[in-house]
């Protein structure tokens, strides 16, 4: 039983690696307090701060192409690099960061760029280059980035086996509570690996007993206790291991490992009765976890060690039944692994959104087909491949949405063309009936007349039509043949009086009327200018609309063709990923099957031994 456990731990621990994937708290960008000068840059940040990274990236790229982030050139470049990096575009991100370092003198931007460059290089496995980038950071980064910088740098040291440097680095750093917990954890693990268990245990114990208000912190606390518990077991400090392992929550992601370890601690001290407690609890749990599989053999082993052969036989028989059932289910899953059904069922669980770029597959749908992928996702290649497959599926969906939109825009343009064809004759008729040149000439004449009236103080010229008419009639009287006769003398007097009154009135009103006339002329001039502009606009629109529509139609054609080509490429790439992922899944399922077969063989052998002992006792 114990020998077989060693083989199983490799898969158990590999799955733990996935469960422990979030080794640092959720990242922030360090851009808080930024004063937005370009609205479109602020709009990008609005999406970015909501973790809607794909929208932020696409809007940023568009805004930059339209020259709408002029006040934030360097920051926009840096943000674009960071977003690309998060989206797995390491090469493009790297180019941006290197270009930025060549062009900017801003120390803050340069330091942040070095940090991102270090991150790219680390992710690409260029550890020495990553180290150089870390060393180029000349001043503290914004708090959130600073925390990530220290933790990433420490991990880089640990990857290089430089545990002492990692410990020294993290000891010199003070961060917020969450990051400090992670730093203590990482330092503790580094110390244990250096052989300094006592010092490492102090830090791991600190994390293992901390007050945790979030699930993330509770999970880290459990993780620290599991790590510390197993370190004690390794150091043969079984008595210390048990209480530490029992601190792990019973229902957390690390509880199975903790229960198995607690049983081992008791078993190592020959206290098989105590070991049965955690192992029996474990043996009723989901068989997917290899700790549970292990417990199915551990429980009868403990009974056998206690001399309780009948119970041992009963539990070995139970284990054989369970392994048999599980093997049949595994065979079905293996049959599925060759098709796309496994991957499709995984994608069904989360619609193709591109929001969660820090997506980690840490839980699987409770589905007969997919539950065995638990083992496959423990494989880094599978996990990364699935992430890319999912991104590509989401992009495919995204392009399909654009295709629908383009189709709607094409209809819209057709409607515009139709409306244009219908309205054009009506408009042309209106334009033809509107004699703008004649109106402009008339307006010019009016202006000249008013100017003349002002120059000669022509009170009649600005008088209303009625008064002008009266004035003309009074003057006309003087030309009549009978005007100079004696009989007209009375009329002449009247005419003189009326003429005088009229002239006096016109003279009195002259300045007001002249002012009104000049204003009216100016207003008319403005109106005619507007009309002329509108005429020109109508003419331009009449001439350009067919061209504009055609231009849009051509662009839509070209974009639709590009979408089609890209979808073909996406389909091809997704096919390759599916093949790749199915191969890993099959490999893992076969390995799992072999492990179960081995367990079954061991259980059969152990059961036979128990029966032999029972028979011997009865003789």
């Amino acid at each position, binding site marked *: 039983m114990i*020998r077989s*456990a060693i083989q199983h*731990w490799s898969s158990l*621990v590999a799955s*733990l690696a*996935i469960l*422990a*994937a979030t080794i640092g708290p959720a990242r922030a960008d360090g851009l*808080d307090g930024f004063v*937005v000068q370009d*609205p479109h840059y*602020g*709009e990008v*940040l*609005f*999406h970015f*701060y*909501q973790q809607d990274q794909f929208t932020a*990236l*696409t*809007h940023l*790229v*568009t805004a930059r*192409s*339209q020259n709408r982030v002029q006040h934030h050139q360097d920051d926009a470049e840096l943000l674009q690099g960071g977003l690309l990096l998060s989206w*797995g*575009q390491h090469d493009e991100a790297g180019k941006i960061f290197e270009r930025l370092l060549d062009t900017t003198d801003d120390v803050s931007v340069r330091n942040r760029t070095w940090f991102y460059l270090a991150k790219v290089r680390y992710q*690409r*496995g260029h*550890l020495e280059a990553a180290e150089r980038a870390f060393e180029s950071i000349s001043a503290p980064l914004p708090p959130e980035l600073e925390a990530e910088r220290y933790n990433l740098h420490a*991990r880089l040291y640990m*990857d290089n086996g430089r545990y002492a440097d990692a410990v020294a680095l993290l000891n010199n750093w003070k961060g917020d509570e969450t990051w400090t917990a992670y730093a203590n954890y990482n330092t503790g*693990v*580094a110390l*244990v690996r250096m052989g300094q268990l006592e010092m490492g245990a102090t830090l791991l114990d600190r994390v293992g007993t901390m007050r945790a208000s979030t699930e993330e912190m509770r999970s880290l606390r459990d*993780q620290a206790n599991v*790590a510390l518990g197993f*370190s004690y*077991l*390794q150091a043969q400090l079984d008595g210390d291991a048990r209480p530490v392992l029992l601190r792990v929550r019973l229902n957390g992601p690390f509880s199975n490992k903790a229960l198995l370890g607690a049983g*081992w601690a008791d078993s190592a001290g020959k206290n098989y009765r105590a070991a049965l407690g955690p192992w029996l609890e474990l043996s009723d749990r989901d068989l997917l976890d290899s700790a549970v599989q292990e417990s199915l053999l551990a429980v009868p082993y403990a009974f056998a060690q206690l001399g309780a052969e009948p119970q041992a036989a009963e539990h070995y028989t139970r284990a054989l039944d369970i392994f048999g059932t599980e093997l049949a289910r595994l065979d079905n899953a293996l049959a599925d692994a060759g098709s796309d059904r496994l991957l499709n069922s995984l994608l069904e669980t989360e619609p193709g959104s591109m929001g969660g770029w820090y997506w*980690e597959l840490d839980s699987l749908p409770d589905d007969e087909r997919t539950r065995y992928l638990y083992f496959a996702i423990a494989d880094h*290649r599978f*996990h990364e*491949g699935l992430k*890319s497959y999912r991104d590509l599926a989401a*992009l495919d969906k*995204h392009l399909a949405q*654009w295709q629908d939109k383009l189709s709607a*825009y094409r209809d*819209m*343009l057709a409607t515009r063309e139709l409306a244009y064809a219908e309205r054009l004759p009506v408009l042309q008729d209106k334009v033809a009936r509107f004699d703008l040149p004649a109106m402009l000439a008339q307006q010019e004449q009016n202006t000249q007349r008013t100017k003349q009236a002002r120059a000669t103080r022509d009170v009649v010229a600005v008088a209303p039509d009625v008064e002008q008419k009266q004035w003309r009639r009074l003057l006309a009287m003087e030309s009549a043949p009978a005007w100079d006769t004696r009989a007209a003398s009375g009329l002449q007097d009247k005419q003189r009086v009326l003429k005088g009154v009229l002239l006096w009135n016109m003279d009195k009103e002259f300045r007001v009327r002249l002012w009104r006339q000049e204003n009216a002329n100016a207003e008319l001039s403005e109106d005619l200018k507007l009309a002329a502009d509108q005429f020109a606009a109508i003419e331009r629109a009449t001439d350009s609309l067919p061209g504009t529509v055609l231009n849009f139609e051509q*662009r839509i054609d070209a*974009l639709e063709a*590009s979408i089609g080509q*890209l979808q073909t*490429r*996406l389909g091809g*790439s997704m096919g*390759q990923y599916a093949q790749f992922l199915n191969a890993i899944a099959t490999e893992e399922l076969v390995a799992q099957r072999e492990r179960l077969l081995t367990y079954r063989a061991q259980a059969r052998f152990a059961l036979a031994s128990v029966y032999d002992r029972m028979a011997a006792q009865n003789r």
Partner: protein
Amino acid sequence: MELKAKLGRITAVLLLALTTQAVFAGPADPANELAALDQQTQALKKSVLELNRDLFVLEEELLYPSNTQVAVFVSLDVGEYFALDSVELSVDGKNVSNYLYTERELKALQRGGVHQLFIGNLKVGEHELVAVFTGQGPHERDYRRGASLIIDKNIGSKYVELRISDSEQAMQPEFVVREWE
């Protein structure tokens, strides 16, 4: 003894696993299949990103040509005296947008993000914009306040900012509608 030997190996693997982050994978072998697929994926994503940019530009030019385009943005400065719930926007007396903010969006605004509340088309000339802000003011009292602006739309895009800030002196929120310069 057997158990101890096993534990030695287990603990070493366990500690390795616990310190390994899937996101930050160790050195990659560029020759492996995943690396080749990754290169292909990067090229594909780059192409999609460029295409997406062209699609956005086309969409905007088609739906909101720059000579008629008007965009209204909401921004928040501090926001201690006012917890924004919603903004209602009218242009020339016609309601064009009613937006209810989620907590996540509010946090994004508080961190300096700017929300594009409205984008549309307006003719050249004067237009009146009226924004009504609803939320909780000082002492958690319901608060509703309006602000307006007459804009002179010329040829070329016009950007308007609805800004909510804190007046330290009056210990009250301030609502400003202004053209974005």
